[in-house]
Every structure is written in C-alpha cells, then in structure tokens.
C-alpha cells in the first residue's frame, strides 16, 4: 500500500518535471520570436521596407546613411542554394556508399571520420579556409582577371571560398542523417526488389532511397539550416564587403553582417542589424516549415 502511494508520487513528480521541461522549450521559442519581432521591426519604420530590403547601398555611418541589405540577402540565398545543390548529392552518395556499397571494413573507417567532421568547430573550418583556400583562390583570381581593369582584387576572399567551406560543413549533417535513414529501410524491401530481378544500383535508386526519403529530406533541411546560419567560418573567408554575389567578389552574408558590425553599431545602424537578424530568422523559420510539410507528405506516401 505504502509502496503504491510512493509510486504515485514519483509518477506525479516526473510528469510535472517533464511538463516544466517542455514549457521551457516552448517559452524559449516564443520569447525569441517576440523579441526578434519587437527589436527587428523598428528599422523597417525608420528606414522604409523597400529601401531596407531592396536598397543596394550599405553605408551605415555616412553623413546621409543608406541601409540597403539587398545584396546581403542575395548573398545568403545564393550561397546557401549553391552549397546545398553541390553538397547534398555528394553527401547522399557518400551515405549510399557507406551503407550499401562499401564493405564493412571500409565503412567502419569512413563512418567515424564523417562523424568527426561534424564535431569540428566551425572556426577551424574558417581557419583552414583562410590559410589554404584563400591563397589558392587568389592565384586563380589573378589568372582569370589578369587583363581586367575594372575588377577589384580581393586577395582570394570571395564567394567561392565561402561556398566551398559551407559545402564541407553541411556534408557531415547530410551524410549522417541520410545514412541512418537508409540503414533503417527494411531488408525485405531490398530483398523483394532484388528478387524481382533489379540490379543492386537499381534497387538503391528506385527502392532504398525513395523509402528513406523522409530521413534524407530532414538531413537536407538541417544542412540548409546550417549553411544559412553559419557565421564564424564564412566571416573569415568571405571578405566582408557588401557586393553583388558574383564568384570572385568579396561578399557579406546575413550572419556575418551581424557578427562584424554589432560591436560598435549605434542608433538606426543597430536597429537595422536587428532587422537583418529578423530577416535571417524568418528564412530559418520558412526552411523549417517546409521541412515539416515535406515530412508529413512523405509519411502519408509511406
């Protein structure tokens, strides 16, 4: 009897504990959203929505300041899109290799390495980019623009460097999540496909990958999230001038915009930086909403 009562108390306490934990998470999301909106919207009033979002001149400290973040938004969109377009196929094929093609010995070596890649702090990627990638890019830049009189030489800190760093950074996310969802596909499906006379490659691309679609999509969207939200590494390799996102231009992303100017910004300049944060936040939200929708559809299909 006593024991039962004790059990009941434990049940009750744990239940409350779990509820409190859940409430903390919800509270965090809600307060961040409210805070970003409260802090981010004043700039839209003081600068003007169109001037802010579609202006192309960023001169926050001039006598007549201009706060156009259009090039910065474009850079973030292009940079993320290109790195995902290149990084996802590489990551997916690596995952297929690890789970379906490679023999156990090789897989046992490669898998931990990829996992280690995910654990490396982003500043290390930035450092490597700074020391290896930028000098290489500068060599290339000098060759390509040897006769150009209008190109401003950036010393190799450009869009391509940033995209390459981003590709390497999203790889482990895509590989790990895709690999585990491919592993989770039932053996029966593969066996059925092989029994019907499909080759191994046909089975992989027509049976296994479609069956693991939901998990792969999760990996892709998390990859997009990482690429969009990465600041430290690309701050070190991208150059940081506000320019049109052309391959050999020095560029600035939404994230690096915040990182580099928050320190000394005052007044409207500071407000605009919060607006930049809000724009970034909205992008991330959109990506996540798309993910949730895709997952639902995938689970209905399945």
């Amino acid at each position, binding site marked *: 009897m006593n024991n039962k009562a004790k059990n009941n108390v434990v049940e009750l306490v744990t239940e409350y504990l779990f509820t409190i934990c859940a409430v903390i998470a919800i509270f965090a999301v809600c307060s961040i959203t409210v805070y970003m909106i409260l802090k981010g919207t004043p700039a839209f009033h003081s600068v003007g929505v169109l001037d802010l979002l579609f202006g192309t001149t960023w001169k926050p400290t001039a006598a007549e300041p201009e706060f156009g973040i259009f090039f910065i938004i474009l850079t973030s969109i292009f940079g993320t899109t290109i790195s995902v377009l290149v990084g996802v196929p590489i990551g997916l094929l690596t995952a297929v290799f690890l789970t379906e093609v490679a023999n156990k010995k090789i897989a046992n070596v490669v898998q931990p390495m990829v996992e280690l890649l995910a654990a490396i702090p982003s500043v290390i990627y930035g450092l490597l980019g700074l020391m290896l990638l930028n000098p290489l890019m500068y060599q290339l830049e*000098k060759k390509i623009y040897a006769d150009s009189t209008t190109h401003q030489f*950036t010393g190799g800190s450009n869009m391509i460097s940033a995209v390459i760093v981003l590709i390497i950074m999203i790889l482990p996310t895509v590989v790990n999540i895709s690999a585990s969802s491919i592993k989770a596909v039932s053996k029966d499906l593969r066996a059925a496909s092989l029994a019907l006379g499909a080759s191994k490659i046909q089975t992989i691309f027509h049976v296994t990958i479609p069956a693991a679609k939901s998990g792969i999509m999760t990996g892709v969207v998390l990859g997009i999230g990482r690429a969009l939200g990465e600041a430290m590494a690309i701050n070190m390799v991208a150059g940081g001038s506000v320019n049109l996102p052309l391959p050999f231009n*020095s560029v600035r992303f939404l994230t690096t915009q915040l990182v580099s100017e928050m320190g000394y910004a005052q007044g409207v300049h500071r407000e605009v930086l919060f607006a930049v944060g809000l724009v970034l936040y909205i992008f991330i939200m959109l990506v996540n909403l798309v993910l949730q929708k895709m997952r639902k559809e995938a689970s209905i299909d399945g």
Partner: protein
Amino acid sequence: MKNNLVKKLAVGMTALMICTSFAGCGSTDSAASDDTSSETTETTETETEESDDLSGNISLAGSTSMEKLCEALSEGFMAKYPGINVSVEYTGSSAGIESLSAGSVDIGNASRNLKDEEKTGGATENIVAIDGIALITDTENTVTNLTTEQLVSIYTGETTNWSELGGADEAIVVIGREAGSGTRGAFEELLEIEDACTYAQELDSTGAVLAKVASTPGAIGYVSLDAIDDTVTSMSLNDVAATEDTIKAGDYQLSRPFVMATMGEVTEQSELVQTWFDYINSEEGQQIVSGVGLILPE
C-alpha cells in the same frame, strides 16, 4: 545499491575537495599578487580614505571614438571612488564641446584639437591620449612609403596596382575595418575620405586585418599603432615613419589627440573633476590609457 551510493558519495566528496582546493589556490594566488603591489595599495589607502567623503556626479559628453577609453577609465575610476558616478554620453566631438560651453556637462570629449573659436569660448584643451593609426603592407611589397595623395587614391579605388607607385606588378588588395569601427572612422576622417572608400575586404578586428595583410601578397591595411608586429611591414606616410616619437611630435599625419576639454584650467575645476584628471595622470590611469592601445602624451 548501497555500494553504488557509497561510490557516488565518494565521487561527490572528491569533487568537492577538488573544488575547494582550487578555490584555495585562487585565493593564495591573489594574495601573492597583492603582496607584490602592496606598496601601491598602502599609498592609495590614505587617498581612498579621503575619497570616501567624495560623492557626486561627473558628466562627460562628446566623441564616439573615445568610447573605449572613457568606458575603461570610468570603470576603473568608479571602482576606486565608489561614491562618485561617472556618466558619459557619446554625441560626437563638436556636440561634446557645445555641451561643455552650454554648461550641461563637466567635461567635453573631442577626438581632435580644439578649434580657435572653441578656445576663445573658454574651453581648455587637455590632451589625455593620442590615437595613432599605422599603415601596413605585406613584407614582400617593395613600396614602403606613400604620399597622402597616393594613399587616398588607393583607398578610393583609383590606384589598383603597385606598379603605378613604383612597385612590382601586383594588384593592390585594399583591406579595412567594418563600418562603425573607431579605427576606420579615424582613418577616413583624417584623410577626408569618409564613406568614399572601396574596400576589397572589411574585417571586424585588428587581428584579422593583420593576419590578412600578412598572408595576402599586395595587401594594404590599417591598424592601431600598438598592434603592429613582425609579420607585416609598417609603411611610412610622406616619408614619416609611424612611431610614438613622430606621432608625439605631430609629424605623422594619421594620428589625432583625444581631448577632455574643461571650461578653464583643470585646477579651477570642482574637486570631483580634479580627482578625475588626477586619476588619469596616476599610474593606474596611464596603464588604462595604454591598455586600450593609445599613446600617452608628454
């Protein structure tokens, strides 16, 4: 079960002991460092006793570039004189001197020499520090001296190759700081190229500028004078090298005084304001000034 509990207890106790022993270490450490500075603390003790009577407000207003200096000084000052509150507003040099003339603040901050009309208005120029900016380039570059015109044309994007300035055929990579940086503000202001610069790279710290200039052939950048090291070449401007001596002598163009102006001489000020200036001129205050990368005036 019991065994487990004992184990946990043991682990907990060891953790506690490690913690306390570390804490012990910490306190002995600070005691040791106290010993070394005991002489100074003894001498200041009498002052602090006096200063206990001092209370009130000191108000400063002016230059945004002096934010770092003022924050560091007021923090140290208020720690030493808990009764005195120092408030600083960063409104810009001219606005600061105007507030001083209007009598709304005790001290007007200006990151430039006072103009003649400001001096005739009664403001006295007290230079508390000098801000020097050095030009740096990579060590391979054969051009080590620039004229002001050449420097301006590099930073406005008119000159794009070192061969135009008598150097090797190497593109110029123009590196600067991010908008809002005090160093960038001072650099552009002193050369009168505010917001006319075309930067190839805008970096957000002195260290990043140094590293990029050191590793990029043909790069040029600017940093605070105290940040220079062997990895880069310090360029001279109009044949004047950037050193503390040339800056103090006023020969080097890329420097500016940090002025804390008062109405009339410092000796005519209230006790509070005099205490403030005494603090700046004390060893502790001078250390703070050089700590934020500024040069001490003679």
